[in-house]
């Protein structure tokens, strides 16, 4: 594989980490969703590039799913839900932006320290890709724990998913990548948008998770 092709692949993967950082500090609902659409767009471009350089046509399907479902359909649906429910106010984060960003930097450093030495024998493509993918996954977890809001948590989860798809495409020749991305898309689309946001709103007049928390199953 020539050097430029690899560099471009790394650029896209690195770009995804950058967009994950952008997701970390969004404090408005709409901008969070827009940045997530960008996240999904970057992942689909990255997967398409991998399909091209690995000569693996089935990965184009994965790229198309990411583009259509996550970069277009889900953001539009989320926009509509938010307008309909009237919850487009600021998002509370659990701790300050500064601390979250510092935590994020720490997580990226951690994943590079963990992944690079042990993947020394794997191909160069897989090597950096996995380090970036693990960073995206860890940043996604950080997004989930730092948001109180259901929409924020779902977006955090979907960004973890994008990281996993990046990892799966980076592992050269991995079968079932398409099936796995379909399974993930169904998971998110079906539960989150179809059922929960509406039902939770119906019952609680809010999608803030700390309101939910007061209804512990354990009653005194």
């Amino acid at each position, binding site marked *: 594989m020539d050097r430029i092709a690899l560099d471009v692949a790394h650029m896209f993967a690195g770009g995804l980490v950058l967009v994950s950082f952008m997701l970390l500090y969004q404090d408005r609902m709409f901008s969070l969703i827009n940045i997530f659409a960008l996240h999904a767009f970057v992942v689909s471009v990255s997967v398409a590039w991998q399909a091209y350089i690995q000569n693996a046509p089935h990965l184009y399907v994965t790229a198309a799913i990411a583009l259509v479902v996550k970069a277009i359909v889900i953001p539009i649906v989320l926009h509509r839900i938010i307008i309909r429910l009237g919850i487009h106010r600021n998002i509370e984060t659990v701790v300050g932006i500064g601390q979250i960003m510092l935590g994020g930097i720490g997580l990226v450093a951690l994943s590079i320290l963990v992944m690079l030495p042990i993947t020394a024998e794997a191909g160069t493509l897989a090597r950096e890709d*996995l380090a970036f993918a693990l960073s995206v996954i860890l940043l996604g977890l950080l997004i989930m724990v730092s948001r109180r809001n259901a929409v924020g948590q779902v977006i955090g989860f979907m960004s973890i998913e994008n990281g*996993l798809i990046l990892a799966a495409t980076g592992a050269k020749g991995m*079968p079932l990548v398409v099936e796995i991305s379909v399974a993930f898309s169904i*998971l998110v689309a079906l539960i989150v948008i179809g059922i929960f946001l509406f039902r939770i709103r119906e019952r609680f007049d809010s999608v803030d998770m700390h309101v939910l928390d007061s209804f512990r*199953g354990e009653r005194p």
Partner: protein
Amino acid sequence: MTDLGALVVDAILIVPAASAALLALLPDDRTTARLNVLATLLTLLCAIALFVVRPEPSPFLIVDDVNVVFIVLNTLVGFTTSVFSSTYIAHELETGRLTHAYLRFYHAMYQILMFAMNLALLANNVGLMWVAVELATLTTVLMVGIYRTPEALEAAWKYFILGSVGIALALFGTILVYLAASSVIGEGLEAMAWSVLVRRAGEFDPALLNLAFVFLLLGYGTKVGLVPLHAWLPDAHAEGPTPISAVLSGLLLNVALFAVLRFKMVMSANAEAIAPGPLMVTLGLVSVVFAAFMLYRRHDIKRMFAYSSIEHMGIISFAFGMGGPLANFAGLLHMIMHSLTKSAIFFAVGHIAQIKGTQEMADIRGLTTSHPILGWGLVLGVIAIVGLPPMGIFMSEFLILSSTFARQPALAVVLALGLLVALGALLRHLNGLAFGEAHGSAAPAQASFVPMFAHLALVLAAGIFLPPAMVLWFQHVAELLR
């Protein structure tokens, strides 16, 4: 013979899938409950047939000595639970907690869940196994939230978030395993096939395998309900319909544990990789001790037994983590006994909660006087689950403890402490539930006692006498598990 075997394996998957489609379409609820029972019975018969005919492993599906035990247990409890479910659901319809539309959805989901669990157990491909576990998670999330109460929605949401993060981590682990395998075996389906992975694991890069196992253990461990990844489990058990609690506790936790065990076999086939045992032992012990203390201050009867499931999954992980023929044997036996006993307890609890109209233990008193059959069934179940003789769990716990005392006395002391604390807590609660003056509604029970007592009879029989053929089979599997 092998063609017939392939047919049987396909039937185990096709029967639940086809019945799910059929049940989603049929409107009449009387037939649907019966059809549900019939479908699970058919699946059970096919699973038993696997003892006789066995297909060659294909790149996607495999039947070996290890997963046959799991599949038969899975389909057996699936069948008895569907029998229990038909009377349980009839009552829910009468009281209006479930509508007809939801009932159709419930039955279809039940079959999809059975399909997903069977697929996860049969899968030869680690990616396919992951997809199946994900499908099982998805269906149970939907079923936990089926009552639409605030508590049920909170439980389902928590389960969804924790469960999907768990399986996301497991997928990352799976990708790493593929990466380790593909540099040795070559790209493609072979590098994800179980049978090949175990055979060639010795040549894999140990550092990659180590990292992969950490992710797999944390990921699938969330689904097993090991402390500190257990937070979803009590809520999901308490708020969903009771047949689902029985299936969750008795089967789905086993399926996740099975996934961990498969990867543990790969790990132990590689001499340079870290030993997976100590990690499982630690998580197992923490779960046992934590759950045992949590049992004391429970108010909700289903939550209490959910914590007891955490405790038992801890014991099983501990046993498999210790490894060796004896501990593996005991772990396997304990897993089967726990599945049977815990589902029997949930059958009793389901009817009790329906009669009393509450899950609060403070409002359930003196069951043995008001509802003797249910009450004594519960007493028997609890006696079995705390590990008193002559029930089967006594035997498996005794084996685990005695084999551990021989090798790691310090660990055995901690385990014994956990078991005793749990015993005290459960018996204390049982005393209030079963004895004393009757409290609350004394309406006669419209219950199906057969599944509950069938399970308890099996557990009792196993405690008194294990057929030599079964012992030999388990010993063989224990050897394979290493």
